[in-house]
C-alpha cells in the first residue's frame, strides 16, 4: 500500500510537470508562433502605454528574450526555490513556491492564490457535502422505488438540475430568494472571517447542479447492485432490509460515485468560475477570470497550475481510496 502511494505520488509530480510545460507553452510559445512579439508580452506585464525603456527592462528582468525552454526552467526553479524580482526601484522577494509576480496588482501570484483559496475552499466544502448527501440519498430512494411517482419526479428534477446552468439558477435565486422575498441575506463572503452561512445560496445552486448528476449515478449503480447475488445472500441471512441496502448495496455502488466525487471536488476547488462570478465571491475562479480580463499572464498561469494541482491531487486521493474501498484492488 505504501509502495502504491509513493508510486502514485511520483506519477502525480510527473503529471504536474507535463501540465505546467503544456500550460507554459500555450502562454508563451503559441502567441509567439502567432506573431505576438516579446514586446507585446512585456506590455502585458507593464501596465498602460509603457515606453520602450520600460519594455526592455521588463524583457530583461523576466528573460523574455531567452529561449522558451530556459524561461520554463526559470519558472520551475522559482516554484521550487523561490525567486527575486527587481522592479528597478526595489527588490521583491518571492519565496518558494513562487508562481510569478503580477505587476498589475503588485503582488506575488502565490500570495494572491493563498488569499483566495480559503474562499473557494469554503464554497466547495459546503456544496460538496450538500450535493453528496442529497444526490446519494435521492439516488438510493429512487432506485428502491423504481418506477413510482417519487422516482419519476426525482429523475425529472435531476434532469433539470443537470441541464440548468448556474448563472440561470443563481441569478434567479438571487432575484427571488434574496431580493424579492428576502428569505436569505445577500451573499457576502470574502474570507474565513465572514460567516460561512452567507454562502448558503451559492452552495445550494452549485449542489443542485451536481446533486442531480449524483442522484442519477447512484440510482443506476444501486439498481445494478441490488440485483447482485450477494444482495440475495444478505437477504437470505435474514438481515433487515435497511442493512441490506446501506451496508451491502450502497457499499458496492460506492466506487463510481467516489471517483466522480473526487474529480468534481478537484475541479471546483480549482475555481468555481461561474458560481463565483454570479454571486460576486472573490475566490480562485474570480482571480483567474480577472487575470484573463486584464491579460495578467502570471496570474492566469498561476491559477491554471493551481487548478491542475487540485485535480491531480483529487485523482491521487481517489486512487488511494479505491484500495481502501475495494480489497481486491489492495491485494493486486
Amino acid at each position: 500500500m505504501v509502495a502504491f502511494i509513493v508510486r502514485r505520488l511520483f506519477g502525480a509530480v510527473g503529471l504536474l510537470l507535463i501540465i505546467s510545460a503544456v500550460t507554459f507553452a500555450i502562454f508563451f510559445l503559441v502567441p509567439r508562433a502567432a506573431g505576438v512579439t516579446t514586446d507585446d508580452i512585456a506590455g502585458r506585464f507593464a501596465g498602460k502605454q509603457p515606453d520602450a525603456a520600460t519594455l526592455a527592462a521588463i524583457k530583461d528582468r523576466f528573460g523574455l528574450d531567452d529561449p522558451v525552454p530556459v524561461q520554463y526552467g526559470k519558472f520551475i526553479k522559482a516554484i521550487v526555490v523561490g525567486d527575486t524580482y527587481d522592479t528597478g526601484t526595489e527588490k521583491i522577494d518571492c519565496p518558494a513556491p513562487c508562481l510569478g509576480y503580477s505587476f498589475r496588482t503588485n503582488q506575488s501570484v502565490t500570495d494572491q492564490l493563498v488569499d483566495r483559496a480559503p474562499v473557494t475552499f469554503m464554497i466547495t466544502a459546503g456544496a460538496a457535502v450538500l450535493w453528496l448527501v442529497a444526490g446519494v440519498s435521492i439516488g438510493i430512494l429512487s432506485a428502491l422505488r423504481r418506477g413510482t411517482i417519487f422516482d419519476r419526479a426525482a429523475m425529472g428534477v435531476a434532469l433539470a438540475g443537470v441541464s440548468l446552468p448556474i448563472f440561470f439558477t443563481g441569478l434567479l435565486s438571487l432575484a427571488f430568494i434574496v431580493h424579492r422575498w428576502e428569505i436569505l441575506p445577500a451573499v457576502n463572503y470574502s474570507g474565513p472571517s465572514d460567516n460561512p452561512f452567507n454562502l448558503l445560496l451559492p452552495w445550494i445552486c452549485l449542489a443542485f447542479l451536481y446533486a442531480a448528476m449524483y442522484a442519477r449515478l447512484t440510482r443506476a449503480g444501486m439498481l445494478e447492485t441490488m440485483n447482485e447475488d450477494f444482495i440475495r445472500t444478505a437477504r437470505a441471512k435474514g438481515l433487515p432490509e435497511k442493512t441490506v441496502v446501506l451496508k451491502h448495496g450502497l457499499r458496492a455502488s460506492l466506487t463510481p460515485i467516489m471517483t466522480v466525487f473526487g474529480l468534481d471536488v478537484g475541479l471546483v476547488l480549482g475555481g468555481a468560475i461561474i458560481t463565483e462570478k454570479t454571486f460576486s465571491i472573490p475566490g480562485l475562479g474570480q482571480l483567474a477570470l480577472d487575470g484573463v480580463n486584464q491579460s495578467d499572464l502570471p496570474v492566469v498561469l498561476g491559477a491554471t497550475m493551481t487548478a491542475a494541482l487540485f485535480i491531480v491531487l483529487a485523482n491521487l486521493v481517489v486512487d488511494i481510496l479505491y484500495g481502501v474501498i475495494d480489497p481486491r484492488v489492495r491485494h493486486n
Partner: protein
Amino acid sequence: MARKRQAELVNDTGETAAGRGAPTAFLEVRDLKIHFPTDDGLVKSVDGLSFKLERGSTLGIVGESGSGKSVTSLGILGLHNRGNANVSGEIWLDGTELVGASQNEVRRLRGRKMSMIFQDPLSSMHPFYTVGKQIIEAYRVHNDVSKQVARKHAIDMLGRVGIPKPDQRVDDYPHQFSGGMRQRAMIAMALSCDPELLIADEPTTALDVTVQAQILDLIRDLQQEFNSAIIMITHDLGVVAELSDDILVMYAGRCAEYASVEDAFHRPLHPYTWGLLGSMPRLDRERSERLMPIKGTPPSLINVPEGCAFNPRCAYCDLTGGKSTTERPELLEVEPGHKAACHLSLEKRREIWDSEIRPKL
C-alpha cells in the same frame, strides 16, 4: 391481493377443515404457485407444487434449467420481491405458515431456522467484506452476542467445514479463497445459526469433481450433526443419488414424479425421468454406447403446452390416445410414496421401462 386472500383462506380452513390446518411434517409445501407478470405474459415458474419434508431427511429436486427449482427454493425463503412475483399456496415450516406471514416474520426465520447455500460462492459473497465479517453478521443478526463471541463462533464454523487455519483465514476476503474453500465458507455462513432447514441450490455446480465429493460429504456430515432437513436442488442426478432420501422431478413448474431414490433410479414411472436417466453419463458402461438425450428444449413458461407439459418431447405421448395433448395429468400416488403425473397406464409404463429403457441405460 391474491396472497392476502390465500392467507385468509388458510386461516379459515386451518380451523375448520380437518387435515388442512397446520401439518405434522416439519416442512410442508401445498399447491405452491409462483407467477411473474411480465410484458410478454404471465410466467408460471412454479405452478402448483406440493411436497413434505421431515427433519434429518433430504429431498433432491431435479429438473432442467428453468423448471422452477431455484424459484421454489427462493419462494420458501421468501426471497421473491413481492412487487413482481405473485406467490400463492401454503408453505408450512414447523407449524408456521410463510406465504401469508409478514415480511418481517419471514426475515427473522431466514438464516436462523432456514438458510440457503447458493450456487456460485464468488458472486454470492460480498466482495468488500472479509469472510469472517460476513459470517459474524449472519450470526449476530439472530443472536445477541458480542463481536468477540461471534468472531470465535465464525472461526469455529470455518474450522468445522474444514478450512485450514481458520483463525487466520477468517480475516481473508472471498477473492483470497479458492473455489472449494469459498463454497465451504458459504456453507459455514449458512450453518452459522444451526438452521433446521437447509436449502442447497446446486452447491457443487461451480466446483471441480474432487471438491464436489468433499462438499457433499461435508453437507452429509453436518446434516447428521444438526439433524437438519435438506433440500438439494440440482440437475446432477449423481448428487441426488449420493445424498437424497426422496427425489422430486420438476418439469415446467410442476412435479412430474416424486419417489424415493431407490424407486426413482430403479422403477421410475415418468417418461421425463427416463429421459433424465438416459442423459446421465455412466462410467460403468461401454463408452461406445450413446447417451439418450431428451429431444427438444424445455417449454416456455408463458405458453406451457396444453395437456401434459412434456407431450411435445415425449416419445410415448401417442400411446395415450390424444389425452396427453388435451388433458393435464394428475399427480397420482401409484405406489406408496411414489407419485407420477402421466396419462400412460401403470402397466404400460412398467412394460416400457423394463423392455425399452432399462436395458439401454
